[in-house]
């Protein structure tokens, strides 16, 4: 056979045979898990020496003989095994978690990140940077073998929730709107500390002080996200200019009128605000509320119930609105409020005016106690009753 013919035959026969061999290797790989140092492995396109077995694994290469399958105990050395896990199976971007491994007897454990887009591994810690699923590889390196385990950590988006109150400073009795940013899921608000209450996204103040309010974003991805905001509640402005405030004993005496014992345990006028009162005159038993309101300056009240006085009294022991009206009408009394438990039972009369300012515009003689300026509605709300009439 001539040399040219042999060359042609080889070209026609060996070339296709080599190609067919490579296809067979690709179609029928050997071991399909990680390789050990010293193994030969191949990828789809090249054959390599597995000086770094993780590299084989990383590029989806396959072992050809030698060590190999850590689960199968190949290579004839000490069986290699490892189970990796993390301190938490989920965390928010921006957070980190410790990494652990079991089963690597007599070997060195290292951790690697197989999904770099969700974060990175440094030593035994995984730092989450982006939402997604982190694939962490735990590697066990023994004297004769190297084996791997892959586990996963769910990374939720970073908590960028921010909360604010508008306005952040209010006066007692006012409300503030609660706002949050960077929550596209369900938001709830709750009062953590301080006065007042929260309903929906509104803060209702009750007393002066700092209120701490927590915003919770219940994210569909899992763990909730929190933020706090604060509201400062200032005392209400006082418009009761007073040069002669009630003394402690005067205030206590008024609050004790008719109140059950022991003294101080029960306020006769629970709604009365001390800063909204002012002493206009001292305690004096020579005139009472009706005596003051009528200008007659005598102690009269139940007297109106006496039929003989001509005020329509029915002698039932109570003073009705009708009896008070009759008295006021006959004596030219106007600009007064009647307080009582019912239209048939009145207990107090106050002047609508005579006080000092918008917070204490009314005035009353408190039984035998002091003559005071006060807010008309603040005398309401106890056994003394409420405003039931007036003229």
């Amino acid at each position, binding site marked *: 056979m001539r040399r040219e013919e042999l060359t042609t035959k080889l070209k026609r026969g060996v070339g296709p045979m080599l190609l067919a061999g490579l296809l067979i290797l690709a179609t029928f790989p050997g071991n399909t898990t990680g390789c050990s140092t010293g193994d030969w492995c191949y990828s789809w396109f090249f054959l390599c020496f597995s000086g770094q077995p993780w590299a084989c694994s990383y590029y989806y290469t396959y072992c050809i003989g030698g060590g190999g399958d850590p689960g199968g105990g190949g290579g004839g050395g000490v069986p290699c095994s490892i189970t990796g896990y993390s301190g938490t199976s989920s965390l928010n971007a921006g957070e980190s978690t410790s990494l652990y491994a079991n089963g690597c007897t007599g070997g060195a454990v290292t951790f690697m990140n197989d999904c770099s887009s969700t974060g990175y591994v440094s030593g035994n810690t995984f730092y989450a940077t982006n939402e997604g699923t982190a694939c962490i590889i735990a590697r066990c390196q023994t004297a004769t073998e190297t084996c791997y385990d892959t586990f996963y950590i769910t990374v939720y988006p970073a908590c960028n929730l921010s909360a604010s109150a508008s306005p952040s400073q209010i006066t007692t009795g006012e409300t503030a709107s609660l706002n949050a940013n960077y929550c596209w899921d369900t938001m709830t608000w709750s009062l953590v500390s301080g006065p007042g209450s929260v309903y929906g996204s509104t803060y209702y103040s009750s007393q002066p002080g700092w209120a701490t309010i927590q915003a919770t974003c219940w994210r569909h991805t899992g763990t909730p996200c929190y933020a706090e905001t604060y509201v400062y509640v200032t005392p209400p402005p006082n418009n009761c200019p007073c040069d002669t405030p009630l003394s402690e004993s005067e205030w206590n005496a008024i609050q004790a*009128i008719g109140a059950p014992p022991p003294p101080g345990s029960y306020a006769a006028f629970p709604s009365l605000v001390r800063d909204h009162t002012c002493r206009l005159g001292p305690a004096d038993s020579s005139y009472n509320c009706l005596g003051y309101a009528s200008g007659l300056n005598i102690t*009269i009240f139940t007297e109106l119930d006496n039929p*003989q006085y001509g005020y329509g009294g029915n002698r039932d*022991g109570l003073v009705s609105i009708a009896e008070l009206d009759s008295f006021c009408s006959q004596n030219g009394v106007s600009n007064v409020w009647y307080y009582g438990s019912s239209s048939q039972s009145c207990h107090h009369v106050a002047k609508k005016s005579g006080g000092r300012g918008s917070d204490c515009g009314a005035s009353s003689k408190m039984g035998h106690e002091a003559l005071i300026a006060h807010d008309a509605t603040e005398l309401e709300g106890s056994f003394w009753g409420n405003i039931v009439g007036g003229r």
Partner: protein
Amino acid sequence: MSRFQSLISLVVLFASFVFATAQDEARYKAGYEAWQKAIATTNVDSTFWFVTDGPPIPVRDAFLELKQFGPNMVPFLVNELRREEDRDRLTRLVLLLMYGFGLDMIATKPGVLMSYYDLAPESRQLFLREWDAGRFLEPQEFLKDVRRGSNEDAVVTRVDPRNLVGVGKFGPFALPFIAETLKKHNSAELFAAYLWTTGQIEIYSEYLNNPQSLCPTRQEKLRHLKEWTKANGRKIDKLHPLHEKLKAALEE
């Protein structure tokens, strides 16, 4: 039974009576002082002194306690009235006899608005003069004079409380007279006086404005009074001879 045994029985009976009376006096005294103290310590005004409902303030509770004793307590209170020296306490006592026990002793002066505080001393003086003269034991003749000219059978749409003042002055001691009159006349005014005197204030207040709504007939009025006497006999049984007179007046 020998004379000696009879004597012993009498002594025991008398001792029991004295003991019972002393016990009653002690209860009256305690109740009365509690009421005075409740007013003095809480400094509450007179519109609360005779309240029987609403919140449990001390004065209300003390007054309800006193009401349980009924007219039997009147002689005790008259004794207190006689010796009371404190003006505030006296004023309260005068009003207690009026609103608690139906004895309207206030000596008002026509056309002059005076406080009960100012009127109390003179009212006491006038009342005790009549009490000591025995007028409360035999008020019938006086009451006949007071009611002379009144049409006891008038059908009225409203009872004027001013027409009850003369009868109200005698309080429970007017009950025999009221009973005797109701046996013959259908008097709305005397029926109202009976309701007030016996402390049935809520019924009384309603009755003034609508006298036809309750016991419109004479027989019904008398039955109401009889039932009250029967139910409250223990509150009046120590007022001799009032109790006997009332029972006699109510007999058919």
